[in-house]
């Protein structure tokens, strides 16, 4: 009797988590659901790279489930289940919104429709996964802080990757990223790199990281810079390059042009890495 009651409570809690996940999918998915370049990417993107991107997203979702998914988890198996559910929520939410907005047309070829839904489901599933932190209660937030404290340096770096990936992905489909790199002079690109590093460092040093009230491990500014800011910016650059490659922006492009575009994308990427703690 007590067990049945506990199970029905668990189902009800999970249903509430799912509802939050849909809300998160809408909030985090809508900006890209309403971006024209994304619809084209779904059609014209290299299918192999799209599959790799879906896989990277899934691995990130499993990691995020560890540190703040929409439901309290007990182990890796549970995290995989939650990541699958988040993918499902992302796909359903994207399909529904894209249909209402007349962007997918079910009479069009299947691969066109599925391509658009697949690429749009990535930000939506991310939103679904982190919805709990946004709408969840205090208790749950404290659980995550504990989980993160246990995760150590690797966990912090993972969160930076997730944050950088999300923000970089949010801006990089647009033509503006490449255009900015064309328009900016070399000096302006260098200044942007310094500004990105400074902002990242201030966020890391002043705001601190998940599970920590103060600067990481009470370290001095120089140490934090080497242990968190530099790796954080390197992560933002690497994520920028990965996203550029995914969207085919590195193909037949000169290396200095790619580097400038990486620096442009690493600017939001660095901020994403720095504030991952607040969002995730």
């Amino acid at each position, binding site marked *: 009797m007590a067990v049945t009651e*506990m199970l029905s409570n668990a189902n009800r809690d999970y249903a509430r988590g799912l509802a939050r996940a849909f809300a998160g999918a809408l909030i985090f998915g809508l900006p890209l659901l309403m971006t024209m370049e994304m619809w084209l990417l779904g059609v014209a993107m290299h299918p192999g790279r799209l599959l790799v991107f*879906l896989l990277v997203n899934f691995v990130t979702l499993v990691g995020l489930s560890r540190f703040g998914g929409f439901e309290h988890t007990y182990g890796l198996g549970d995290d995989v289940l939650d990541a699958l559910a988040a993918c*499902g929520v992302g796909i359903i939410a994207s399909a529904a919104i894209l249909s209402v907005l007349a962007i997918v047309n079910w009479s069009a070829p299947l691969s066109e429709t599925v391509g658009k839904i697949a690429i749009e489901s990535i930000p939506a599933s991310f939103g679904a996964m982190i919805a709990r932190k946004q709408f969840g209660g205090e208790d749950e937030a404290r659980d995550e802080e504990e989980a993160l404290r246990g995760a150590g340096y690797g966990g912090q770096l993972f969160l930076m990757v997730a944050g950088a990936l999300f923000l970089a992905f949010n801006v990089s489909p647009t033509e503006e990223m490449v255009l900015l790199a064309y328009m900016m002079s070399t000096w302006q690109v260098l200044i942007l790199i310094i500004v990105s590093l400074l902002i990242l460092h201030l966020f890391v040093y002043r705001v601190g990281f998940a599970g920590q009230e103060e600067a990481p491990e009470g370290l001095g500014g120089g140490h934090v810079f080497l242990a968190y800011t530099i790796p954080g910016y390197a992560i933002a650059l690497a994520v920028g390059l990965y996203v550029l490659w995914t969207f085919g922006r590195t193909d037949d492009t000169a290396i200095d042009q790619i580097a400038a575009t990486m620096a442009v994308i690493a600017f939001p990427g660095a901020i994403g890495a720095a504030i991952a703690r607040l969002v995730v």
Partner: protein
Amino acid sequence: MAKAATRGKPVGAPLLEWLAAGVGLLLVIAVIVVIGRDAVSGATDGTPDLDVVATRVVAVSSGAVLEFEIRNHSAFTAAAVQIEGKLPGGETSIATVDYVPGRSVRRGGLQFSADPRGAELRVLGYQDP
């Protein structure tokens, strides 16, 4: 009570969790199969195969619009597709269609001051997306 269920010893994942994960798994597999088919089918930079046909003529206040359909017979998307229509009398109109995805149809119209019946339509060019 709810607290005991979430905080206490795991009772196993609730049924709804398995259901949500199962639906998610099915959707993920479906997406991978459809995209994977394209990925496996090989070549990724090919040439769009476009043709344009007139569909109907509609009279408007400043003349007439000749509506057309562009069909892309290949799997490769074309961007910035330019369509030209030429009347026997020499009047020429040009329209640009942003994107014609692979194996898809896009529609548009060319405006003329004279009656556009008998216009000659052709694709001028496109850009790789």
